[in-house]
């Protein structure tokens, strides 16, 4: 009887796992490598949520400091990057709360609003946005448009569609359920679509651009 070969069950180990283990053991070079890998992403996330460059710089520094201090508590149940994003999101939301003392800012607010959930603009985008505007103009429109979204929607959209986190990773980073992420993401996408249509919609003949 031939021996049954057990299938090779080499699960792919994320390269961060080794770096995190080294950093935990006090290897500063390994920690610096992790910083290099994620500093831009963390900065972008913080800037998207706070819409403020100085805040985003502070948050990025604070998030890495927190991660460094709490490295021992990182269990490796999630990806290191997701854990880091979670720290940065919490710092960013805290910063927003401080800025708007009269208004609470949390992932739970704004979910009641129906604005943009029902599409109203049915014009095609022609020509493509890239053909209608140069890069600087386009970036300006995209910034202005995402700024108008409630923070809870903006954050979900940023993690999923800008930073390409999976739905599960986004849920983990935000402390939300998967269905909650999906519902916010749909509304964020629809609201952005509706707002961008004002710029990109095909003009009717005789209508000013």
């Amino acid at each position, binding site marked *: 009887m031939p021996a049954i070969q057990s299938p090779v069950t080499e699960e792919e180990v994320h390269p961060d796992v080794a770096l995190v283990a080294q950093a935990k053991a006090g290897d500063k070079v390994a920690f*610096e490598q992790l910083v290099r890998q994620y500093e831009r992403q963390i900065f972008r996330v913080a800037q998207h949520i706070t819409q403020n460059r100085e805040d985003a710089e502070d948050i990025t520094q604070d998030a890495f400091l927190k991660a460094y201090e709490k490295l021992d508590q990182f269990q490796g149940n999630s990806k290191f990057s997701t854990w880091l994003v979670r720290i940065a999101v919490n710092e960013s939301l805290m910063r927003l709360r401080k800025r708007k003392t009269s208004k609470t800012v949390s992932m739970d607010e704004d979910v009641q609003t129906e604005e943009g959930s029902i599409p109203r603009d049915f014009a095609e985008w022609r020509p493509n946005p890239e053909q209608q505007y140069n890069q600087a103009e386009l970036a300006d429109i995209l910034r202005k448009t995402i700024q108008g979204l409630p923070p809870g929607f903006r954050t979900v959209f940023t993690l999923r569609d800008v930073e390409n986190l999976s739905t599960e990773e986004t849920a983990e980073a935000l402390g939300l359920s998967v269905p909650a992420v999906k519902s916010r993401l749909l509304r964020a996408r629809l609201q952005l679509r509706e707002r961008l249509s004002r710029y990109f919609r095909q003009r009717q003949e005789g209508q000013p651009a």
Partner: protein
Amino acid sequence: MNCTDLLSHLSDYFDNELSPELREEVRTHTAGCQHCKVVLDTTHQTIEVYKDNEIYEVSTELRERLHTAIMSKCIGR
């Protein structure tokens, strides 16, 4: 599938989380409903335009400053 159903499946459609049957229903519906076709197309364009354009550029100068600040906070150098 009606327009409301389509809307509720829209995100799953883009995230490739729909069953082949439902994907087909989406295609059938949009083939006969111009409004839903536009919503589907322009929502797709919305996602793509944000993916393709980095709206907050991190300059080399900013990145270096940030990196130095992080390392000096964490490790003190």
